């Protein structure tokens, strides 16, 4: 019998948008493997970091950013959103499917929202299946 698919997600997040200890309850649920990359601001996420996550075997990449009007560095969330959009197009061109990469706004105190985002990401990845370039 085939082993059930357990998506590997690389999670980039601004340290102000997400509290790892409070929000990674899904790891305990045993249906997902999450690797987190903490960033001082989501604008630090570069195209190549996102692509290399897929090279390293991630089935999906999630970028959690602060709401656009709450970025401490003013434009960080907007910059991250533009980069993610660009890389989504690259993933479509490659044939990996841009839906494997997503960006969502969240804020540190809102664990319930973050859990919901993670569940939605797992659902999308379960539908897409494993990364064909892993």
């Amino acid at each position, binding site marked *: 019998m085939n082993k059930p698919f357990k998506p590997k997600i690389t999670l980039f997040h601004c340290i102000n948008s997400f509290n790892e200890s409070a929000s990674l309850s899904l790891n305990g649920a045993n249906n997902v493997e999450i690797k987190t990359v903490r960033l001082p601001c989501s604008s630090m996420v*570069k*195209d*190549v970091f996102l*692509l*290399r996550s*897929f*090279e390293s075997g991630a089935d999906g990449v999630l970028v959690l950013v602060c709401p656009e009007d709450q970025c401490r560095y003013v434009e960080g969330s907007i910059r991250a959103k533009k980069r993610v959009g660009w890389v989504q197009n*690259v993933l479509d*061109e*490659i*044939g*990996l499917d841009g839906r494997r990469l997503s960006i969502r706004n969240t804020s540190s105190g809102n664990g319930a929202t973050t859990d919901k985002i993670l569940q939605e990401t797992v659902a999308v990845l379960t539908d897409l299946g494993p990364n*064909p*370039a*892993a």
Partner: protein
Amino acid sequence: MIVGEQKPLAEIKEIVGPYRKLLILGCGTCVKTCFAGGEDEVATLASALRLIFKKEGQNIKIEEFTIERQCENEFIQEASEAIGRNDSVLSLACGAGVQAIARRFAKIPVLPGVNTTFIGVLESQGVFTEECSGCGNCELAIFGGVCPITRCSKKLLNGPCGGSRHGICEVSPDTECAWQLIIERLEALGQVHNLRCYISPKDWSSSNSGGPRRLVREDHII
């Protein structure tokens, strides 16, 4: 600077397809500034190509390297070891850089990864505009520093056409009327009298239409 744009991924994949060991060679000057071929673009393209080839089950080894300028031998030399380790080079420089590398390494195919677009400036973040056609005979002094040969859609040298509306060219809403800019600039400089000068038809023999150009500086030749 020279402004260029990276070729579409599908075209690059097609170009590099026949080779097994590929060096992606970046250029750290003009094309870096316009986000087409600097170190970051080399890394991103290499990663995207590795994903494509892995997905398709092809075993192509990709190496990354960036030098300061691909149009000068002094810098090209720094890449010679990396070039020697590979069976092809994808250059992310402008056309001059690609040819300079090809001239230096006769037995290695040097492939272009960038479409060289124009000589221009960074107008605002992420926006590049063409400012110079390299005509070989600069007359910006008369035109207040605004080039009608490059920036007027009709290349008019003796005043505006009738197609300018509110400072915008009738050819494209994204193009400012060069003659509007020239007149405003000459007014600001107190040189409106320049407009009375008759500019004779342009002698294009100093431009590329006279064939490939060559500049010789005897004082630098030993």
